């Protein structure tokens, strides 16, 4: 995964970058399977490696497949480096307090996880605890997520529709001028 990320940063051919992004998603999915998070791995493989790669390719076919030369102004480089370094340091500092992966005394296992695991299948009749939590215990969250997808779809449709409507108007105006 580290190799793919490094290649993505170094390469300037966006087509190859999109492909490497798909490979990265597939590797991430494999990692999630190793961590026993099959549901998440499934989503990562379908959305990350599948749909978003296709959409990125679609975007590339509309624009260009070569990266533009970045601006080489030293001030921007310094600001960007500063922000990245601060963010990275904060993230690493935060991860120092994290419990070891698989630690049974980690705080996350102390509250509701036990209840979900022991009562979830009984109360909902659904053997897959992930689905039980997702759809029943956290039904409002999932409703919100569905609405996020809904809003995203509407947003994309409106953006493209307004672009197309504007172009149509231009075309009609152009034709009228031509007739005159």
């Amino acid at each position, binding site marked *: 995964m580290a190799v793919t990320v490094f290649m993505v940063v170094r390469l300037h051919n966006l087509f190859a970058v999109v492909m490497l992004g798909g490979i990265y998603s597939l590797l991430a999915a494999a990692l999630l399977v190793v961590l026993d998070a099959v549901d998440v791995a499934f989503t990562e493989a*379908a959305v990350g490696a599948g*749909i978003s790669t296709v959409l990125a390719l679609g975007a590339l076919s509309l624009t260009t497949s070569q990266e533009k030369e970045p601006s080489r102004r030293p001030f921007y480089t310094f600001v960007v480096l500063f922000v990245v370094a601060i963010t990275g340091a904060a993230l690493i500092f935060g991860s120092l307090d994290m419990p070891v992966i698989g630690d049974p005394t980690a705080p996350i296992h102390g509250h509701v996880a036990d209840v979900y695991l022991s009562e979830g299948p009984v109360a909902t009749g659904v053997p897959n605890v992930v689905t039980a939590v997702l759809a029943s215990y956290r039904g409002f969250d999932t409703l919100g997520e569905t609405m996020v997808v809904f809003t995203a779809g509407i947003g994309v*449709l409106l953006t493209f529709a307004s672009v197309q409507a504007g172009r149509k108007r231009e075309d009609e105006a152009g034709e009228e001028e031509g007739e005159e």
Partner: protein
Amino acid sequence: MTHHLVVRVIAKMLIPFIMLFALYVQFHGDFGPGGGFQAGVIFASAFILYALVFGVETAREVAPDWVVRTGIALGGLIYGGTGVVSLFKDGNYLDYSVLKADPVAGQHIGILVIELGVGITVASVMTAIFFAFAGRQRRG
């Protein structure tokens, strides 16, 4: 890609199985991994494969714009409507236990229905976004 014979034949063979697998993931999500989100994406990818091989215009005939747009809203309505139904049955919003006399069966039905709503919305949105991208001509 209309002239690649192998791709066309293989795609034709694969698409029904992709859709079947999507439905399996959709309705089997309570026993194995999967659920509405994954199923919706897989179902949409069947349409996208079809559009890639046979052209976007052909795919638009299979899934016209009004179907896709209705699907986007329908899924959300199914999800929200389930909550309203449980309100009418003297429960809290999205409390599936009241959907049937047996709370466990009610939960089961509720989860299946809302997952269906999620699946419809996700599949329609993905298809719509792909059509929007692919249907646009490059500015000459």
